[in-house]
């Protein structure tokens, strides 16, 4: 070791921080080198002498520190507090019991939500077709302005009535008075076409239409708009009684809906109105006849079927009317007429099977009928005569 290296290790040698070989080498150099040896000895003597007296810390300092520490610990800063809380929550959340409890609560909670939803769900969805207040208002306005309301009120007294009741009363009055005055109305046509007996029945039926309307209105809740069919029916009645009232024919679908709902009277009026509006509309006429058959029986329907049969001869509608007419005649006991009516259909491929069914259905009954007098039904000849005179 030379002097330069010795000086670099001087402090370490002085404080015994050199490893043993280096320290031994340094000691050898110090013993052989007067300068380096004196340097080391001088610093070592200085360390030995320059011992600073240690001042003992005041007794109260420890108490001051501990008191201040206790006070400081009372108010833990937010960040360490949050970290501590997070650590505790994390340790607690990592327990398997906590996870199981969470899963259990989740399952219970979700099932509870589903149960509540099913309780509040409606049992069934009902779609209600409400009336057509705009059309009704238009009809009311038209009727109110076109007709002499003073006379209508006079006929029914001065009792104050609702607009709907006033309208129905007015329409009923018009229906009763109009046929003789305006033979072009529905009732007039029916009377002309069907003869006196049919007219009587038909007229009785149509005279009761205001009653039907009243019944329909009575079943409606208070304040509710009148049903569209009742409104239409009233309009049709009014149209039949007064040429000034703008008659709005019932929609075919509405009439068919009424038919399917077994409101045959209402359907008959609807189909009749359509047939009157368009004399070529034999389909409506057919369905009007079917509605009358269901509502009042074959006795009323047969002339209608005959009418359609004649008007639409050779067409599907005509064949259908023929089948229905024959069926009615069969039901009325007019087997010969029924047979003569349906026999031509045996030559129509699409209807031969059904025509044969009608004929087959009459076989056992015809035998009984031959034995019994034919007092139960009008003679086919008379009916045929009445029918052939009819025309749309």
């Amino acid at each position, binding site marked *: 070791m030379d002097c330069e290296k010795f000086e670099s290790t*001087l*402090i*370490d040698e*002085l*404080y015994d*921080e050199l490893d043993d070989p280096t320290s031994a080498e340094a000691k050898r150099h110090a013993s052989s080198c007067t300068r380096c040896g004196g340097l080391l*000895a*001088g*610093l*070592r*003597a*200085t*360390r*030995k*002498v*320059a*011992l*600073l*007296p*240690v*001042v*003992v*810390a*005041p007794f109260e*300092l*420890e108490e*001051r*520190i*501990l008191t*201040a*520490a*206790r006070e*400081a*610990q009372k108010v833990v*800063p937010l960040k*360490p507090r949050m*970290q*501590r809380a997070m650590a505790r929550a994390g340790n607690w959340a990592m327990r398997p019991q906590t996870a199981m409890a969470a899963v259990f609560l989740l399952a219970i909670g979700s099932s509870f939500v589903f149960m509540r939803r099913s309780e509040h769900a409606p049992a069934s969805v009902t779609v209600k077709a409400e009336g057509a207040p705009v059309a009704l208002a238009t009809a009311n306005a038209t009727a109110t302005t076109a007709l002499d309301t003073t006379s209508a009120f006079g006929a029914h007294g001065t009792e104050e009535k609702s607009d709907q009741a006033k309208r129905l009363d007015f329409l009923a009055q018009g229906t009763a008075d109009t046929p003789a005055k305006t033979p072009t109305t529905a009732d007039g046509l029916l009377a002309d076409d069907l003869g006196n007996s049919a007219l009587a029945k038909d007229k009785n039926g149509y005279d009761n239409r205001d009653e039907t309307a009243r019944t329909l209105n009575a079943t409606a809740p208070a304040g509710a708009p009148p049903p569209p069919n009742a409104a239409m029916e009233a309009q049709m009645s009014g149209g039949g009684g007064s040429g000034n009232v703008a008659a709005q024919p019932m929609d075919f679908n509405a009439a068919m809906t009424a038919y399917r709902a077994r409101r045959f009277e209402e359907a008959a009026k609807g189909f009749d109105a359509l047939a009157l509006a368009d004399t070529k509309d034999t389909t409506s006429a057919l369905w009007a006849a079917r509605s009358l058959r269901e509502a009042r029986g074959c006795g009323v329907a047969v002339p209608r079927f005959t009418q359609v049969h004649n008007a639409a001869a050779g067409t599907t509608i005509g064949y259908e009317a023929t089948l229905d007419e024959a069926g009615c005649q069969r039901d009325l006991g007019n087997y010969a007429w029924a047979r003569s009516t349906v026999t031509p259909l045996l030559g129509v491929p699409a209807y031969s099977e059904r025509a044969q069914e009608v004929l087959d259905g009459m076989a056992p009954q015809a035998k009984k009928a031959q034995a019994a007098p034919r007092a139960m039904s009008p003679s086919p000849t008379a009916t045929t005569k009445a029918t052939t005179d009819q025309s749309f």
Partner: protein
Amino acid sequence: MSDAQATDEALMIRYQRGDRSAFATLVRRHQTPLYNFALRQLRTPEVAQDVVQEAFMRVVQNAQEFKHEARFTTWVYTITRNLCIDQMRKRALRKHPSLDEGRQSSEGEGPTLGEQTADTKANVEREATGSELRERITEAVETLPHDQREVFLMREVSNLPFKEIAEITGVPENTVKSRMRYALERLQAALSEFEEYSRALK
């Protein structure tokens, strides 16, 4: 293992877990070295006490950030040293130093103004009673440059290894050793006239 035998780091870990007695043990173990370190730097007992107390409060407030790999002494001496530097800067900004404050000179920090203005006859008597060497040692240490003095104090008073002193002061270890050598050489020059030095030299 008792508190007295436990290492500083073990005591600190226990304190992190809420053991306040471990903190009390740390205070008892380190308050005197820290107080001497602060007192030799600041020369004012009250300010030195405040600095030590504040250093331990920082330990309390930041206890959760202490890592067991670190040395507690390095941490607490770093805090105390920084607090001392703050105090010395505040003192340097004052225009009218108090009687307790050390005198600033071009060569370093001298004795307090209180010591300078004390009865000179009393100083003569103390020297007469053989305490002159102690006074001289104290004076010589106080007159050391700050960087040399703090290294000398940490090594001789607190017995910290040079490596740890380097970490506290933030300088290389060789620099610390150089400062230590310069400090010893200054003290050697101040004490060489004393008989005790001559005896130690033999």
